[in-house]
C-alpha cells in the first residue's frame, strides 16, 4: 500500500515539476528549447493543453504587498468564499481518504476522476444543442458523475468477468476514458470557440469559480465530513474486518457503497478546484502523511483532515494571488510538503524515529558484545568458578585485569572505530575505563557483564540441550536471539535449566582466552 502511494506521489511530483518548469520557461527566456524539450517528453495531454495556450501563457506576476495583505486578511469576499470552500473540500478529502487508504481502495478514486472527463464534454455538447447554459457547473458535474460511475463499473466488470487483476483494469479504464475525454474536448474546441475553460477541470482553477460553485462545493464537502463522523465506527470496522462486520449484521456491501459514494462526491466537487488529474492526490497524500504520526485511527483521521484542509487553504490562497497558477498543483504541493515532513519527522513511523530506534538497538547490542567479550577475556584470569561468585559480589571490588584492544578486536569482526565508539559510550556510563592501551571493567561493569554472559550461556545451554544445536554453532545462534530476550523469558529459561545457583555457568564451548 505504502509503495503504491509513494508511486502516485512521485508521479504527482513529476507532473508538478513539469508544470512549474513550463510556467517559468517563458520568464527565464528558455522559450526556444524549454517547452520543446518538455513537449517531447510528456504525455500528449500537455501538448494538447499547450496548443490551446493555457500553460505556456502563464506568465507569473509577483503580487504587490497590497495583494498579499488582502489575501492574508481575506479582505476580498470572493477570495474568502473560495478559500473557505476549498479548505472544506480538503478536509473532506483527507477524512474520506483515510478510510480508502485503509480499505486499500485508494486507486479507485483515480480511475473515477479520470473517467469524468468525457462526461464533462458530453454535458457541454448536450447543453449547447439544447440551448441551455453550457457552462453551468451542476450540469457539467452531473455529466462527470455519470461517466465517472460508468468508468468504475467497467473496472468492476473487467475484474469479475476476466482474469485480469484490478491494477490492470484500473490502468486500462483510466487511460481510455481520459484519452476519450481529451479527444472530445479538442473536437469541442474546434467546433465552438467559447468552450475555453473546460480544460480547467483537468488541472483545477479556483479563479474560474463563482460564488454559487463554491457553495455547491462547500455543502457537498460538509455532507462528506458529517457522514464520515457519523459512520466513523462502522467504516472503521468495515476497513479492518469486513467479514466480521457482516457477521455482526452490518451491511458490508452497503457500507462499501457509502464509502464509494463519499469518494465520488469528493472527486466530483473537487474537479473544479483541484482538477481531475490531481484530485486523487488529495485523497491519498494527507492520509498517507497522517499514518506516520499515529497508531490510532481517529487521530489519523483528524490529522489527515487537517493536512487536507491546510493544503486546500494555502493552495486556494496562492491561486488567488497568482491568478494564472493552477490551483490543483498548489494544493497538492502544499500537501506534499506535509507528507515529506511527516515521512521524516512522524513520531510513530517517521524515518527519523525509526532510525533512532535502530541506532539505539545497535548501540545496546554493541555494548553487550563489548562487555561480554571483556568478561570472557578476563574470566580465566580469575580463580575457579566457585570463587568467582564472591569476587563479583564484593562491593567496590575492582577487576584489576586490563583487556587489550588487540584482544577485543580479535574477539569479534568489528572495526576498531566501532569498538572505540562502544568503549567511549560504556565509559560514559562508568561501566569501564580506559587503562593505557586497554580497558578495565568497573565494579558495575563486572556485574552487568556477568549478567549478560550468564544470559548468553544459559541460552546456549538451552539450544544444545533442547534444540539439538551443535556446540560449535551455538554461539552465533544465541547471539542472534539473546539481545531480544525479555526478563520473563530468562526466568523461564532459568527454571527450565535449573541453574539458579550458578551466577555464570561455564561456557559450553571453548572460549578464546586472553593471552598474557
Amino acid at each position, binding site marked *: 500500500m505504502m509503495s503504491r502511494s509513494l508511486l502516485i506521489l512521485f508521479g504527482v511530483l513529476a507532473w508538478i515539476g513539469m508544470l512549474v518548469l513550463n510556467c517559468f520557461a517563458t520568464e527565464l527566456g528558455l522559450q526556444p528549447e524549454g517547452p520543446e524539450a518538455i513537449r517531447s517528453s510528456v504525455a500528449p495531454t500537455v501538448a494538447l493543453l499547450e496548443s490551446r495556450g493555457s500553460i505556456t501563457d502563464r506568465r507569473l506576476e509577483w503580487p504587490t504587498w497590497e495583494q498579499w495583505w488582502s489575501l492574508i486578511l481575506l479582505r476580498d469576499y470572493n477570495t474568502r468564499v473560495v478559500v473557505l470552500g476549498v479548505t472544506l473540500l480538503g478536509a473532506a478529502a483527507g477524512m474520506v481518504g483515510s478510510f480508502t487508504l485503509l480499505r486499500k481502495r485508494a486507486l479507485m478514486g483515480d480511475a473515477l476522476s479520470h473517467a469524468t472527463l468525457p462526461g464533462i464534454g458530453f454535458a457541454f455538447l448536450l447543453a449547447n444543442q439544447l440551448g441551455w447554459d453550457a457552462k453551468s457547473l451542476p450540469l457539467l458535474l452531473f455529466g462527470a458523475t455519470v461517466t465517472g460511475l460508468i468508468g468504475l463499473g467497467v473496472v468492476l466488470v473487467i475484474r469479475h468477468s476476466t482474469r485480469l487483476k484490478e491494477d490492470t483494469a484500473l490502468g486500462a479504464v483510466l487511460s481510455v476514458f481520459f484519452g476519450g475525454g481529451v479527444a472530445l474536448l479538442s473536437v469541442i474546441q474546434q467546433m465552438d470557440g467559447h468552450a475555453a475553460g473546460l480544460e480547467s477541470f483537468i488541472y483545477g482553477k479556483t479563479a474560474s469559480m463563482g460564488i454559487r460553485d463554491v457553495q455547491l462545493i462547500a455543502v457537498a464537502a460538509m455532507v462528506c465530513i458529517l457522514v464520515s463522523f457519523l459512520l466513523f465506527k*462502522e467504516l472503521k*470496522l468495515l*476497513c479492518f*474486518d469486513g*467479514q*466480521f462486520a457482516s*457477521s455482526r449484521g452490518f451491511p458490508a456491501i452497503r457500507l462499501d457503497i457509502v464509502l464509494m459514494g463519499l469518494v465520488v462526491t469528493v472527486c466530483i466537487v473537487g474537479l473544479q478546484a483541484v482538477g481531475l488529474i490531481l484530485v486523487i492526490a488529495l485523497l491519498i497524500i494527507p492520509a498517507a502523511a497522517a499514518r506516520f504520526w499515529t497508531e*490510532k*485511527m481517529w487521530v489519523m483521521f483528524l490529522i489527515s483532515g487537517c493536512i487536507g484542509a491546510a493544503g486546500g487553504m494555502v493552495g486556494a490562497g496562492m491561486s488567488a494571488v497568482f491568478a494564472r497558477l493552477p490551483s490543483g498543483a498548489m494544493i497538492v504541493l502544499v500537501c506534499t510538503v506535509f507528507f515529506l515532513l511527516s515521512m521524516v519527522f512522524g513520531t510513530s513511523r517517521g524515518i527519523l524515529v525509526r532510525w533512532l530506534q535502530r541506532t539505539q538497538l545497535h548501540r545496546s547490542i554493541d555494548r553487550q558484545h563489548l562487555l561480554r567479550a571483556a568478561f570472557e577475556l578476563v574470566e580465566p584470569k580469575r580463580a575457579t568458578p566457585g570463587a568467582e561468585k564472591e569476587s563479583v559480589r564484593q562491593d567496590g571490588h575492582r577487576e584489576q585485569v586490563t583487556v587489550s584492544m588487540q584482544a577485543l578486536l580479535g574477539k569479534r569482526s568489528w572495526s576498531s572505530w566501532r569498538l572505540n565508539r562502544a568503549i567511549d559510550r560504556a565509559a560514559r556510563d562508568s561501566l569501564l575505563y580506559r587503562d593505557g592501551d586497554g580497558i578495565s571493567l568497573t565494579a558495575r561493569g563486572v556485574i552487568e557483564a556477568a549478567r549478560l554472559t550468564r544470559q548468553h550461556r544459559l541460552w546456549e545451554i538451552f539450544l544444545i540441550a533442547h534444540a539439538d544445536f551443535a556446540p560449535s554453532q551455538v554461539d552465533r545462534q544465541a547471539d542472534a536471539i539473546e539481545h531480544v530476550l525479555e526478563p520473563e523469558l530468562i526466568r523461564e529459561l532459568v527454571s527450565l535449566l535449573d541453574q539458579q545457583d550458578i551466577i555464570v555457568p561455564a561456557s559450553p564451548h571453548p572460549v578464546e582466552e586472553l593471552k598474557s
Partner: protein
Amino acid sequence: MVTNAIPLSIDDLTVAYHRKPVIWDVSLDLPAGSLVGVVGPNGAGKSTLLKAVMDLIPRASGRIKVFGESYADNRGRVGYVPQRESVDWDFPVDALDVVTMGLYREIGWCFPVRKKHRQAAMEALRRVGMADLANRQISQLSGGQQQRTFLARALVQDADLYLMDEPFAAVDASTERAIVDVLRDMRARGKTAVVIHHDLQTVAEYFDYVVLLNMRVVAHGFVKDVFTPENLQKTYGGRLTLLDEVTEAMRHQRRKL
C-alpha cells in the same frame, strides 16, 4: 438466557464457489453446552461451513437454524472468531479497540463508544490474560496475543454459541492454555463452541463432540464414539477421490470457459 433449543442445526447444506462444490449435503444437530471440534484435511470446507452458517457466503441449498431461528434473528447470540490471517494487523488500532468492535452492534449506528463499553472490553481482555496489553498497537502483538484479542472480541458479546476458525493455529503454549481455559469456562456456563481444529492429538482432550468433515460429513458424534481410526482414515486417507476428481474437472472446465 440459554434455552434448550439446539444451538446449531444444519440440514442438507450445499455450498459452491463458482459452481465448484465446497461442501455437499451437510446435515448436523449440535448438542447444547458442549465443545465441538470440526476436523478435516485442508480444503475440506471447514471455514466455508462456518461462513455459510453466518450467511457470509451464499449457499446453493440447505436450511440453517440457530437456537431454532434463522441466523439473522439470532445474530446476537452467536460470537465469531475469524482466522487470524483474515485481517491486516498493521491497521492503526490497539487491542482494546479491536475487542470493542464486538460491541458495535450493541452500541448502535452512529453512536460513539462509551466508557461502559470500554470497561466490558477490558474485562474480556482480562479473561484471556491480556489486560496489560490493552493499549498496545495490534502489529506489536505476537501471533498468540493477536489470536487472544480476536477471542476477547467474541467473548465481549456474551454470546451462547461461538464459532471459531482455527484459534489454535500457530499459537504459543500459553495462548493455547488460555484458550482451553476459556473454552472450559464457557462449557461450565452452558455455552456451545464450534471450533475448527487441526491438531488431531488434542481433539479427545479438548472436545466432547466432533465433526469429521471432508466436503461432506464423514461422521459426527461424541468423541468417544466417533473419533476412531476408521473414521479418521475415511476423512483423511483412502479418501473420497472421486469427489476430488469431479470437482477438479469442474474447476478445469470453468477455467477454459
